[in-house]
């Protein structure tokens, strides 16, 4: 896999390059601003990009805007956004085009290397990787009569993991249950939330995220 990184903090940039390199992922460019970033994407045609949110010159949300812009120019370009904090409206903006291939994670998730590489791979394959904190923010602050309230505790766990972008096998592993049981939970969740259950894979995740974001 070939990846472009944009991160203005030199320690983090070099750390990321090293960490991804160790995991067998080729970092074709590691830059510290969005201009070079957009140029690198056009020039290198990477399989995925990893970007920070706050970047020079204004240190607000340049990285996010650059990611959205990059996906406008190169539709479906897998983008993994890393940030010191998560803000669900940013997740909604990234997901807005409904194409998938989007990741939005807290920076410290990088530390759990295996899981981070797994998330990046998922994103590069057109899947999603939402930070658990995004999902938990989406799950609270709901109305008292929200259909989500009818979910059992286990179903909520499955829903959260599904919304983060995990496949059934990973969900089953994480919760230490069989894949069949996960399938059953998912069927129940879709019925309770009145979501059509005819879509598989990433489209299913996008449907769930759209539901939670609404």
């Amino acid at each position, binding site marked *: 896999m070939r990846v472009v990184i944009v991160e203005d903090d030199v320690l983090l940039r070099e750390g990321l390059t090293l960490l991804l390199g160790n995991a067998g992922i080729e970092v074709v460019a590691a830059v510290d601003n969005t201009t070079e970033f957009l140029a690198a994407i056009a020039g290198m045609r990477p399989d995925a990009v990893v970007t920070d949110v706050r970047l020079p010159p204004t240190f607000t949300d340049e990285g996010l805007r650059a990611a959205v812009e990059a996906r406008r120019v190169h539709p479906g370009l897998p983008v993994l956004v890393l940030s010191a904090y998560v803000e669900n409206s940013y997740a909604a903006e990234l997901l807005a085009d409904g194409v998938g291939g989007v990741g939005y994670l807290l920076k*410290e998730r990088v530390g759990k290397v295996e899981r981070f590489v797994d998330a990046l791979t998922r994103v590069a394959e057109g899947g999603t990787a939402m930070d658990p904190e995004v999902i938990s*923010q989406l799950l609270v602050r709901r109305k008292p009569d*929200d259909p989500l309230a009818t979910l059992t505790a286990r179903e909520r766990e499955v829903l959260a993991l599904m919304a983060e972008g995990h496949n059934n096998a990973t969900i089953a592993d994480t919760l230490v249950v069989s894949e069949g049981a996960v399938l059953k939970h998912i069927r129940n969740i879709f019925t309770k939330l009145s979501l059509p259950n005819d879509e598989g894979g990433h489209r299913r995740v996008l449907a769930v995220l759209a539901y939670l974001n609404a």
Partner: protein
Amino acid sequence: MTRLAPVWTAARYLLVGAGTALLSLLALTGIFLVAGLSLISIGLPAVPEALRLVRRLVDVERGRAGAFLGTPIPAAYRLPDGPVLTQVRTVLTDPATRRDLVWLLVHGPVGLLLGTLAVALPISAVNHLFIPVYWWLVPGGVQTSLGFVVDSWSTAPLAVAIGVFYGLLWLQLPRFARWQARFAQRMLSPAEGVSLVDRVAELTASRAGALEAHGAELRRIERDLHDGAQARIAAVVMQLGIADQMRARDPEAAFDLVRKAQDTAIDALAELRDVVRSIYPPVLSDRGLDGAVSALAARCPVPCTLEVAPIGRRPAAIEAAAYFIVAEALTNITKHSAAEHASVRLEATDDKLFITVRDDGRGGADGNLGTGIVGIQRRADAFDGHAELSSPLGGPTVLRVELPCGS
């Protein structure tokens, strides 16, 4: 017709003025009654209440005259509080009370007169202009309003002259209306110096409140950092130190400790994020107040419409306060209102920020009970702002907050 438009406006103004004049006379009667009863002291408890009613009437006039003149008329009353006798003293020694009473005394008769003129002048003018046409039909002639009787062609032109005079007088109604409004403006504005004195007292109180709130906030941040992130990072350093000690003897256990240290560091980051968010939400710095509030509205489970006038950047503390006020209001709506719909409105002038949060829920929100509302009040107070909640049973609930923000 356009030249007559101000006359119509003035006539309407004076007519309503007659209404308030009637109420003024009524109020005066009431006051005399209460004053009489107060002499034998049983009327005393009614004094603050009576004057509160007067203030309400006077407020109507303030609004009316202010709208007519195009400049709002400020009010500055001492607010009666505490035991009845203290309240009585407060309202009676308030110079604004004296000015209100003078206004009632003058406006009562004069307002009634002007209101009558506004209606009678045009009718009478038309009548007098037509007297030459019909006087000969009336046996014994027609009585004019100046007393003489038109019963011959030689007196008829006099009637026309009176009609013209009334008509001209009628065209002067805007002037009368302006007099009435200016008199209200003069008497009902705070006396010179009073508003400043009150303002200084208010500001001193709110400044003390702001300092207190600021101090409490600093202590909270210190405690959060000390008990949270700081303690955890200390633990990380210690865990890594122990791992270093153990690495030769028991590499496996040392690795375990390194992993544990990583988890602890992750927890520390989570706590730091919470503290940062409670001080100044990062989204504010990224997107400004309008962007941050849009994000709040979008995230609100109750469908929420947003009206945001261009606000630009304001002092960070004000932006944070406004953000938390909207956030708390929306949380209250989500939790308690059972509303189908909410709306948030943000407007700003050069030196003020206005927040209106409204919902169509069940109402009955009580400022004395709800902690969220107390929090909003406290945040507004800290900046010499003002929060007002209206929530009748059955809704709608409307929260209005005003934050001064000299920019």
